[in-house]
Structures are given as structure tokens and as C-alpha cells.
């Protein structure tokens, strides 16, 4: 890849420098501010608050990565902050007395961040399979355990804490870190990885089906966020000159959660503003003495009642301004076709408890084939899709996708093999735009590393451009380009279903599994859909497996039909054969259907 995209070392260096320009440029400004104002005695109190805000911003923005973007629910952020703070403080207390270039200080912050990230990994790895409130309570418990460990460890000064920590952290340091945190989080959020985080929040099952390794992304979000909290802890200790376990109780974690929710889940500017507001609020209420925290808590409740989606919702502050959009480009390259069987299911059986949902199911799908799966509700059709895409492993039998046994593979791995699906009750990422939904489909085709996204490397840029083109083309094919920037949830029903197909196609599949695509569409849309399915096959060279109740669509589009009833394949064959099969008529089509179609079928025979 480097050969394809990489320029000379010089251009790369220039690019790296440019990408950090806003950041690098900020440091002298911060230093000047520090020099001219922060060290003035009159400004001491103001800058103390400003620095507290800086630390709060690091905490809130980093927690936003987990709670807001990835939709996980952590309330133990103070624990990670404590890990970072204490590790760095212990090093500083034992470090050289003189640190003129602050090299040891930087090393201690890095160590604190690393320790916190490691703690994040240790907590995240086992517990992220828990959901919602359970994850919350585990992170809360973990934060408390950290505090208790600190209170019982002589190295950490037990309940009294550590002091005096060399006070190296000042306005410049804290705000440099705060700006870096915002920049990194923003760049991550705007990259394909950021969309992967969002997809985990919106719908894990669909995200897996798009090829997103959801567990991997959850752990990554957790580790990055914990590391940033570690930086905040290190800076906080070195700014205050002391650390004590009482500063890291769950109340502290709650405050950070409040900043994230109040700012608006996922909004980086929202978190930043909320961090400032919630840090300053108690300070401005100081005049009220004992009442100030009472008022602070009432303000928190009232803000939540008045603005339940936070100050900015999921938007950023610049979203409130009119904005520009990119232009489309040439279509993506076609992939070579395959001749072997794409999907090869051999005698698959799955039982849930005592119930056999699908029994001895076999199916081969060849490239570019159009196959339909029909049968009464509850016959096990969707279960077959879940087997194919790895949502459930078969109890018996084997499933091969492009020659590879899928046993033990996660849904996202199978998506990489080239299976894409839609869902019966469409599972779009409802709070994301149509464009982002499709872009997420492209996610697993990207190679850029997270570091590259943050650096804005060339590969990242080339890929982003390619993803944009590809996504816009797909939207155009599905007739959805005019909906590009609408939230998926605001699309009419029929368009939502088409968007789901576009998203599935974006993964560049070899086979497309459509689960009742015509459900809820009217007759006109149904005939359009019939044409669309054929077009998709021709244009993208994919095989299509279709679950559908609408017989007109099924008979019109499919080359081969399988009929399931109570998990058993009762018939398979050409549409014409299925329509006259007595078992199918009895179990599914009904006598009336058979009677009313007898004429047509007979007529069809004459033609043959």
C-alpha cells in the first residue's frame, strides 16, 4: 500500500507537520498567554479555574469517546484518572530534582497514560460483553476498587495521599493536552474508525454484519479513553501539587458523566462546553456559600429536563452553521468474479433449548444466482440468514462461504468473506445520516490505522476520498442521493429499505442476503424492487438470497426457490415447480392460491 500511496519521505514529513499545524501553532500562543497573564497575581484565581476547565475537558471529551460515540456506559472514569495521576506522581516524587527541559515530566505523563490505558484494557476486555447498566456498575465498582487499593498502599500515601508533587503542570501544559485531546478525538470521530464507533452505539448486530469488529472497537474506545483520563490525572496531580484518594470517588466520575450527557452524547464541542459550564458553575455560586452545591444540583436536574438531548444533541457547534458538501467521482473498481460455490451449507441444524429451529438444511448458492427462501412465518427463514452470517453457529453441520468453513468466525469476519445482509425490521443506524450509513458499509474495506487517522496520513486521505465516491455512487444507484444528509430515521419506509440495501452493497459483497425487502412497500414499489434486484445482480455481480412473502416478487425474480416449514426444507426447485408442489400448497401457499393460479400455471406450461 505504501508504494501505491506514499510519496517521498519529504512530502510525508511535510504532511505530518501540516496535519499537526493547528496544534503546533497553539503552543506558542498558550505559552505567551501563560507568560503575560497566568503568572500575574491578579489572574491567579481565574487561571486556576481555567486550568480546572482544561482538565475537565480532557476528562469529558475522552469519556465522550466511550459513552457518547461508542454508546457504552462507563461511570468509572475517576478510577482511570487516579491510575494515571498516581503513577505519574510516584515517578515525579522519585525523579530527578531538576527537570529543566521537562523531559522526565513528559515521561511521567506518558507512564501515567500508559498505566491508565492498561487498566482500561484490563477492565474493558472482560467486561465489555456486559451491556448497559451492568457495564456501568462494573466500571463504577472498578473505580471504587482502585480507590480502596490506593488507600491501602503505602507507596501511594494511603488515605493521606501524595504531596508535594513537583508543580510542573501549568496553563501551557494543561491546555496543550486539552487541545490535543480534542484534536485526536475529533479526527478519530471523523475517520472510518469514528463511524465504526458510532455503528457500535447505533446497532451492534448491524455493525457486525457490516464487518465492524464491535468488541475490538469497544475495547479500543475504552483503552484510548482511559489513557486520556490518565493524562488528566497526571496533569491534575502535578498542577495541584498533591493527590488524595478522596478526589477520585464515584462522585467525580458522575460529574464527568454529567458533562458528557449535558453536552450531548457524541458531541465533542458539547462536551467541551459542558465541561466548562459545570466546572465554572460551582465557582460562580461560591458567593452563595453553603447553598451553592444545592443550586448546582438543581441546575443539573433542570438542564436535563429542559434539554434532554444535551446542549448540542449529537451535533457539533459548527453544525449550527450552514456547511458545504463534497462532490461525487468515478465508480469503484470491479472485483474479479468467482466460479466456485459462494455459499455451501451442508446439513446444518440449529436448536435453541429443546426447539429445533432449522433441521438438516442444505443450500448451495453460485455466483450471480438469484435464490429465494419462502415459507410461513416462524419456519426458520431468518434463522437461516443468522446461520449464514454467523449470528448463531449451527448445532450440527457446516457452512462454507467461498470455500471457507465459517465455524468459529464472528459475523464481522463473515462480512469480510463477502456476505452482506439486510434485516427484517431494518436495522439502520438510525441517528446517522444516509451517507454515513453507507460509508460505514465501506468500513471493512479500509486499511488506515487509527494512528494514521489521527495524523491525517495520506492513505487515510486517499481512502476517505474513495469511500466518499463509492458511497455517493451507491446512494445514486438506489435513488437516494437527494437524501444524503438526512438522518436515516427520517427517511420514509421504502427509502429506508433501499438505504439498507445500499449499505449492504457498500461492503462489496459477493452475496447479498435480503430479508423481506418488500415488506411494507406498495405494489408499485414492489415492481421497482424486482427490477432493482435484477439490476444489482447485473451491475455488482452479486448473488442474491431473498426471503420474501410476496409471491409475485418471489416468482418474478428468483431462479430457484427453497421452501421451509417448521425448520424443514419441504421443497426446492424452479418457481413453476414450487407453485404446483402439493406440499408447498398445503403448508404455505394455500388451496386458494393454487386454485387461483392454476390457470396461469397451466398457461405457462403451454408456453414452455
Amino acid at each position, binding site marked *: 500500500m505504501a508504494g501505491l500511496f506514499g510519496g517521498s519521505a519529504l512530502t510525508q514529513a511535510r504532511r505530518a507537520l501540516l496535519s499537526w499545524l493547528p496544534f503546533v501553532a497553539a503552543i506558542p500562543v498558550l505559552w505567551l498567554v501563560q507568560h503575560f497573564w497566568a503568572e500575574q497575581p491578579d489572574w491567579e484565581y481565574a487561571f486556576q479555574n481555567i486550568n480546572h476547565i482544561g482538565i475537565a475537558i480532557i476528562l469529558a471529551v475522552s469519556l465522550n469517546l466511550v*459513552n457518547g460515540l461508542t454508546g457504552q*456506559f462507563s461511570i468509572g472514569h475517576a478510577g482511570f484518572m487516579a491510575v494515571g495521576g498516581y503513577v505519574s506522581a510516584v515517578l515525579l516524587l522519585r525523579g530527578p530534582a531538576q527537570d529543566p527541559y521537562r523531559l522526565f515530566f513528559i515521561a511521567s505523563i506518558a507512564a501515567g497514560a500508559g498505566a491508565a490505558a492498561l487498566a482500561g484494557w484490563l477492565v474493558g476486555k*472482560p*467486561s465489555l*460483553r*456486559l451491556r*448497559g*447498566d*451492568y457495564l*456501568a*456498575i*462494573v466500571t*463504577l*465498582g*472498578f473505580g*471504587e*476498587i482502585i*480507590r*480502596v*487499593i490506593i*488507600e*491501602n498502599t503505602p507507596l501511594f500515601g494511603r488515605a493521606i495521599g501524595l504531596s508535594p508533587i513537583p508543580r510542573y503542570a501549568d496553563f501551557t501544559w494543561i491546555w496543550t493536552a486539552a487541545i490535543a485531546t480534542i484534536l485526536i478525538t475529533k479526527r478519530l470521530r471523523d475517520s472510518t474508525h469514528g463511524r465504526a464507533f458510532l455503528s457500535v452505539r447505533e446497532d451492534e*448486530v448491524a455493525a457486525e454484519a457490516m464487518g465492524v469488529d464491535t468488541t475490538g472497537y469497544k475495547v479500543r474506545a475504552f483503552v484510548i479513553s482511559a489513557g486520556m483520563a490518565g493524562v488528566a490525572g497526571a496533569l491534575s496531580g502535578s498542577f495541584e501539587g498533591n493527590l488524595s484518594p478522596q478526589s477520585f470517588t*464515584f*462522585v467525580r466520575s*458522575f460529574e464527568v*458523566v*454529567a458533562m458528557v*450527557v*449535558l453536552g450531548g*452524547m457524541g458531541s465533542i464541542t458539547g462536551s467541551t462546553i459542558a465541561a466548562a459550564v459545570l466546572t465554572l458553575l460551582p465557582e460562580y455560586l461560591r458567593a452563595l456559600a*453553603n*447553598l451553592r*452545591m*444545592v443550586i*448546582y*444540583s*438543581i441546575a*443539573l*436536574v433542570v438542564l*436535563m*429536563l429542559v434539554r*434532554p*438531548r444535551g446542549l448540542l444533541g449529537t451535533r457539533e457547534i459548527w453544525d449550527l452553521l450552514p456547511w458545504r458538501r463534497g462532490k461525487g467521482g468515478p465508480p469503484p473498481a470491479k472485483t474479479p468474479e468467482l466460479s466456485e460455490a459462494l455459499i455451501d451449507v451442508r446439513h446444518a441444524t440449529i436448536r435453541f433449548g429443546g426447539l429445533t429451529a432449522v433441521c438438516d438444511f442444505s443450500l448451495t448458492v453460485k455466483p450471480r444466482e438469484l435464490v429465494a427462501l419462502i415459507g410461513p412465518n416462524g419456519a426458520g427463514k*431468518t434463522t437461516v440468514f*443468522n446461520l449464514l452470517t454467523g*449470528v448463531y453457529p449451527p448445532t450440527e453441520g457446516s457452512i462454507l462461504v467461498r470455500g471457507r468453513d465459517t465455524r468459529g468466525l464472528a459475523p464481522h469476519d463473515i462480512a469480510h468473506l463477502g456476505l452482506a445482509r439486510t*434485516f427484517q425490521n431494518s436495522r439502520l443506524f438510525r441517528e446517522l445520516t444516509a451517507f454515513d450509513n453507507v460509508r460505514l458499509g465501506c468500513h471493512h474495506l479500509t486499511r488506515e490505522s487509527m494512528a494514521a487517522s489521527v495524523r491525517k496520513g495520506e492513505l487515510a486521505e486517499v481512502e476517505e476520498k474513495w469511500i466518499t465516491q463509492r458511497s455517493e455512487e451507491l446512494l445514486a444507484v438506489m435513488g437516494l442521493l437527494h437524501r444524503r444528509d438526512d438522518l436515516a430515521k427520517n427517511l420514509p419506509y421504502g427509502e429506508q429499505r433501499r438505504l439498507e440495501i445500499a449499505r449492504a452493497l457498500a461492503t462489496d459483497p459477493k452475496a447479498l442476503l435480503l430479508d423481506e425487502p418488500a415488506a411494507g412497500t406498495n405494489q408499485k414499489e414492489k415492481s421497482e424492487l424486482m427490477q432493482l434486484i435484477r439490476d444489482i445482480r447485473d451491475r455488482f455481480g452479486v448473488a442474491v438470497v431473498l426471503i420474501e412473502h410476496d409471491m409475485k416478487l418471489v416468482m418474478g425474480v428468483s431462479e430457484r426457490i427453497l421452501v421451509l416449514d417448521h425448520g424443514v426444507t419441504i421443497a426446492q426447485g424452479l418457481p413453476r415447480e414450487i407453485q404446483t408442489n402439493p406440499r408447498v400448497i398445503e403448508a404455505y401457499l394455500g388451496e386458494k392460491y393454487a386454485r387461483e393460479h392454476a390457470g396461469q400455471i397451466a398457461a405457462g406450461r403451454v408456453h414452455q
Partner: protein
Amino acid sequence: MAEFFQHIINGISVGAIYALIALGYTMVYGVLKLINFAHGDVFMIGAMVGWYVARWTGESRDPSIPGALLVTLASMLACAILGFVIERAAYRPLRNSPRLNSLITAIGVSFFLEYGGQYVFGPNPRVFTVLPRHPGLHVGPVSLGYVDVVTVVVSVVLMFLLQRIVFHTRMGTAMRAVSYNSTVASLMGVNIDLVISFTFVLGSVLAAVAGILYASKYPSVQPLMGLMPGLKAFVAAVLGGIGNVPGAMLGGLVLGLAEQIVSGYLSSSWRDAVAFGILILVLLVRPTGLLGRGEAEKV
């Protein structure tokens, strides 16, 4: 051996209090899927109201059993009203919002009660006497503190009553129906708002009694006293399987016993870590708690 039994008895007594608070968490979670973080502070308000009423009636100078009953009833009434008001004012407007929002509101309400308590009551602990002094019982070398005996008896009676309410009354049936599926429950003619209010009132009343018992055990009251027991009780509720009434009782007991044994044999400063350690272990092995039921997501 005697020491061991002593720890067991202390553990049961503390565990019973945790269980009483945990019931409030678990019932509210059952009907609303909300972690009511303010519940620990309702417990604190229960103790605080008890302190004021005891001072006002002269009970704190001259404790008697009827006096103690009066104090407890007053505190139950106050907490019932408080629970009702919290739900109406802070949670009901957000019932259809994302759950994280109600959680932040709950935290806000919790802060409000704590800081409000500090404002009204002052930040320092005050001595709490409601129960008459009594040497307690001695069984061989094991001593049963009077407060411990009262705690266990009262808790058992209350849990028995609660069990009757939840499983043998119309309101209890309605509560269970709402916790299984509130939409369908409303189609059966259940007044959801009423059930939710009732659940808050019931949980708050139990928290009030727990507050009085806890304050009598240590004997002091202070505005932040709800913080740790509240958190522990929540842990107990999750441990037992949140939303599950017998689970909350079991979780409280397990937690109380584990804590007492650890502080007895190891060090009391590790006590808090143990509670959460057990919780994390249990959740990793049984993600829905000891008695909780799992729900598979339909794809």
C-alpha cells in the same frame, strides 16, 4: 469459632439493612429500568427525619419502644412523600427519553439531597438515639446486640410483608406486569403512572426504615451517610439480579456477610473493595446476577 459466629451475626444484620435498601433499587429498576441513584439519599433523609422527630418528641432524651415506633412511622411518611415527589418532578418528564438522561437526573437529585442535607443539617455527624438502651443478648461467647436483633426481626417482617404485597395483591400483580412489559400491562387495564408512583413510595418507605435501623446501629446521622450504603445496596441488587425481589434480599445478605468476614479477618479498609470485587466476579460469570434471568436479543 465464637469470633466467626460474631462476624456472621454482624454480617446478617448489615446485610439485612442492605437488603432493605436494595429492594427499593430493584423494584424501581423493575418497573422503570432506571437506576435510581437518589435512593441512597432517601435512606439518609429517612434517618435525618428520624433524628428531628426524635428530638422534637423528646424521644432522643428518653427513648421508648412506642416512641421509636412513632419516629419510624413519621420517617416512613416523610420518605413516602419524598419518593413520590422525586418521581413526579424529576423522572416522569423524562420517561420517554434515553435512559442515560434519567440517570443524570437521578444523580442530580442525589446531589441535591446530599447538599441540601448538609445545608439544613450541617455537615457533621450527630448522635442518634431512638431505641431504648439494652444490653443485648449473650449466647455463650457470642453477643447479640440489641439493635442487631431488632434489625433482623424488623427486616424479616418487612420482607415478608413485601413478598405478600408483590405476589398476592392487585398492586403487586400490577407491578410485576409492568416490569415484564409495561405496554401490555396498560392494555390489561393497569394504570402505569399509579404503579410507578406506588413503587417509589414502597421503596422509599423501606429505605426510611433501613435509615432508622442503620443510624441506630452506628448511632449517628450525617448528610453523606447514604452514599456508601446506597452504593452497596445497589451492588446487592445487581448481585442478586436487578429487578428481582428475592434476588435483592439474597444479594444484600451475601454482601453483608462477605464484608463482615473480610473486615474481621483481613482489614476493614479492604471492605469496600471486596464488595465490588465480588460483584465484578459474579457479573463476569453470571452476567444477569445470581437470580436474574437473561433476555436474548432477537435479530
